[in-house]
């Protein structure tokens, strides 16, 4: 039982705030939750697992534009109609129509192309013995995977990467300042998406967009606008996340070379390697919810409208759920929340899990003795994190 006085406080707006810190570990040992600048943070696995899926909470990102003084315009319209922030039947209807296209069985035909892409990118830098991992591997890989999936010519990946990153600025606290740039990127992405949709309506094929164009449940289907909004969300939600998570993953293995060698010797452990990296070093450091009603939970009285952050790395390394929380790709583990949880659980998780397993397997099969080669640069630990620059040196295997 935590009394009010014992409740830890975490300053998550401080640019120096770190999830991997003694202060956060101490807070978790003392209490299942902490107070923060913006509402509560849930620290322990058991509590994240139950509260994240509690129907008395809803997506907390819906009012993001308003909180930043944005009340209308292209970004506002897109964001407020996005699957990510819709709730109830409005959300479930779109999710019902999208979900099947993202299942494993529809993904399998793409996997050999992801493998070929990983090999191509690695073979380009392999002879050099060094690589700036973000720009030479993670970003082109994450973006070209999306191009393959969506049927966009892979040669256009730099444009897609630029548009995705620009829309990503919308998640920063400088939204107002970046708004014109964000809206220009959305407008440009809309043109891409609309062209793709028109093309597949006339020339349907076995690809993902054709599947979405044809998706139909009991006479209900996605309108052209709904499909366009969804395609933009896929690009926005699928690129930076995968790029960042790959960078974090390689960094984890650089710090645990014995695990990297284990992976190289046992490539069948690649899916477990992805899970371990996302559990111990996730790019999405928290997911946000808002309480819909007043309610009591354990000793806490929570008012309606309270923001609740679910900490993923902190709950993913909670010793009560993971007695030996260090990365171990051979261990049996309970699930982590790096892909969120509940109704808004990541739509693209099968894609991300498969493409990252392929990448880690290919990288570990060709590179050993990874080390930092120069100056690495990182985003802060707030919400989404990862390397900006990750210069590596390595030996060929």
């Amino acid at each position, binding site marked *: 039982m935590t009394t009010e006085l014992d409740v830890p406080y975490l300053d998550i707006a401080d640019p120096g705030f770190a999830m991997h810190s003694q202060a956060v570990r101490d807070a978790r040992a003392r209490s299942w939750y902490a107070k923060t600048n913006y509402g509560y943070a849930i620290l322990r696995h058991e509590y994240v*697992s*139950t509260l994240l*899926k*509690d*129907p008395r909470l809803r997506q907390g990102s819906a009012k993001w534009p308003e909180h930043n003084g944005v009340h209308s315009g292209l970004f506002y319209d897109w964001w407020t109609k996005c699957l990510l922030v819709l709730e109830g039947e409005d959300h*479930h209807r779109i*999710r*019902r129509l999208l*979900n*099947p296209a*993202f*299942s*494993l*069985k529809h993904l399998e035909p793409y996997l050999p192309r992801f493998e070929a892409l990983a090999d191509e990118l690695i073979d380009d830098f392999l002879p050099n013995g060094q690589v700036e991992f973000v720009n030479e591997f993670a970003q082109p890989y994450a973006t070209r995977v999306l191009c393959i999936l969506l049927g966009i010519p892979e040669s256009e990946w730099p444009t897609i990467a630029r548009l995705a990153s620009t829309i990503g600025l919308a998640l920063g606290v400088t939204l107002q300042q970046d708004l014109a740039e964000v809206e220009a990127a959305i407008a440009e992405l809309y043109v891409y998406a609309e062209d793709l949709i028109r093309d597949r309506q006339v020339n349907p094929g076995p690809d993902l967009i054709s599947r979405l164009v044809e998706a139909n449940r009991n006479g209900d289907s996605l309108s052209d606008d709904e499909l366009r909004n969804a395609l933009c969300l896929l690009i926005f939600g699928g690129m930076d996340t995968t790029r960042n998570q790959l960078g974090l993953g390689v960094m984890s293995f650089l710090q645990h070379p014995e695990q990297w060698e284990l992976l190289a010797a046992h490539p069948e452990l690649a899916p477990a390697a992805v899970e371990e990296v996302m559990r111990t070093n996730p790019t999405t450091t928290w997911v946000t919810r808002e309480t819909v009603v007043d309610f009591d939970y354990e000793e806490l009285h929570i008012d309606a409208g309270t923001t609740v952050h679910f900490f993923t790395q902190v709950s993913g390394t909670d010793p009560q759920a993971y007695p030996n929380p260090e990365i171990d790709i051979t261990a049996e583990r309970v*699930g982590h929340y790096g*892909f969120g*949880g*509940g*109704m808004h*659980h*990541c739509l693209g*998780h099968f894609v991300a899990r498969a493409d990252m397993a392929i990448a880690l397997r290919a990288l570990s099969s060709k590179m050993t003795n990874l080390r930092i080669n120069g100056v690495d640069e990182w985003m802060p630990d707030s919400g989404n994190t990862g390397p900006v620059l990750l210069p590596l040196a390595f030996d060929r295997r």
Partner: protein
Amino acid sequence: MKVIVDRTKCDNHGQCTFAAPTVFRLDERGILQYEENVDESLRDEVEEASDVCPAQAIRISD
């Protein structure tokens, strides 16, 4: 047909309830409840639920 959910894998994400709402539902605490014996006419819906389950917890036995 018989529907089996592996409770050690299921994490109550509720994606199955979108695919087959008459078979799967979340209760007021957000915990999955489901029908075990399901009419053959719902096979497509239950297969879809099984395909989209993030935890791959749903099995159908004939």
